[in-house]
């Protein structure tokens, strides 16, 4: 084999590895984004109450790890555990007449050879309390830690970012 062919072969192999890595990481990144889109859809689904509320709560709980931690900043105690989080979300849901969640500017960075991901995003929420006419909107930046277990991505930590300190 000539030196030229050897170099050419090495470049080809490197190119294939690069393309393969890019395709693999892009697909994992896409999986994380799809998971977050599905969570948004689950949160925004309107339920009539009763059993449906429990089913929805269980569905939403599936997007978080058992030991999830939600850190909303220095003025609030962290929420620890999936059951606590889902319970709080259900109570909030019962008090509100309307609630919508939107995630924007989602940035995904894979870590630990694709077993974990760090996600930055802006979450905007619109809610209207039962009996109130006006809606209130809020937008905050969050840092999410996600982990993959048995092929499923779940959120293990949510940290609110202080854009304004």
């Amino acid at each position: 084999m000539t030196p030229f062919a050897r170099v050419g072969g090495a470049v080809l192999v490197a190119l294939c590895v690069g393309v393969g890595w890019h395709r693999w990481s892009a697909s994992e990144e896409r999986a994380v984004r799809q998971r977050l889109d599905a969570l948004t859809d689950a949160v925004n689904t309107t339920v009539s109450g009763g059993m449906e509320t429990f089913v929805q709560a269980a569905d939403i709980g599936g997007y978080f790890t058992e030991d999830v931690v939600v850190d909303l900043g220095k003025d609030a105690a962290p929420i620890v555990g999936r059951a606590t989080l889902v319970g709080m979300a259900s109570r909030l849901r019962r008090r509100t007449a309307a609630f919508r969640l939107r995630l924007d500017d989602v940035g995904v960075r894979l870590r630990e050879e694709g077993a974990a991901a760090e996600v930055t995003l802006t979450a905007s929420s619109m809610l209207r309390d039962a009996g109130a006419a006006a809606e209130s909107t809020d937008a905050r930046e969050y840092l999410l830690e996600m982990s993959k277990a048995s092929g499923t991505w779940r959120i293990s930590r949510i940290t609110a970012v202080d854009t304004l300190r």
Partner: protein
Amino acid sequence: MSLARRLVFGSNPRRTAVRILILTAVSFGTFRWILIPVRTQGISMQPTYESDHLTFVNRLAFVWRPPARGDIVAIRLAGPHVVYVKRIVGLPGERLEIVEGQVLIDALPLAEPYVRNRRPWDVPEVTLEKGEYFVIGDNRGMRVGDHDFGRVDAARILGRILF
């Protein structure tokens, strides 16, 4: 060429197509990277901006000069699609505190003609570091806990609100 065709395509359709392409490219570039349209949500900038006010962020505003006191700026969160719209009241190196709703810069009261209602907010003194600005909304009639304000890094300032 019929009148209808001439009205739609012009006397030289090829030249018209080129013009349309250039116009589309210029508009796309302008409104994506230079003048970003934003719609305000919420009441924190009242009375200057009501909720649902449509305006633009001029991303070139601070290319030739740094942000100045009184500038209304867009501050990015995780990205450029959702931004805070706030007014700069404190500049790098200044000491800022709020006493009974009055903003003090280096212990001197700041004149703020754009503020109508003022609740007695109290914010302890902070010294702004290099590249750090202090921003607040114009609506000081809100409860202090309901209003997002504070120090922000210059890197997060996307541009100046146009009108």
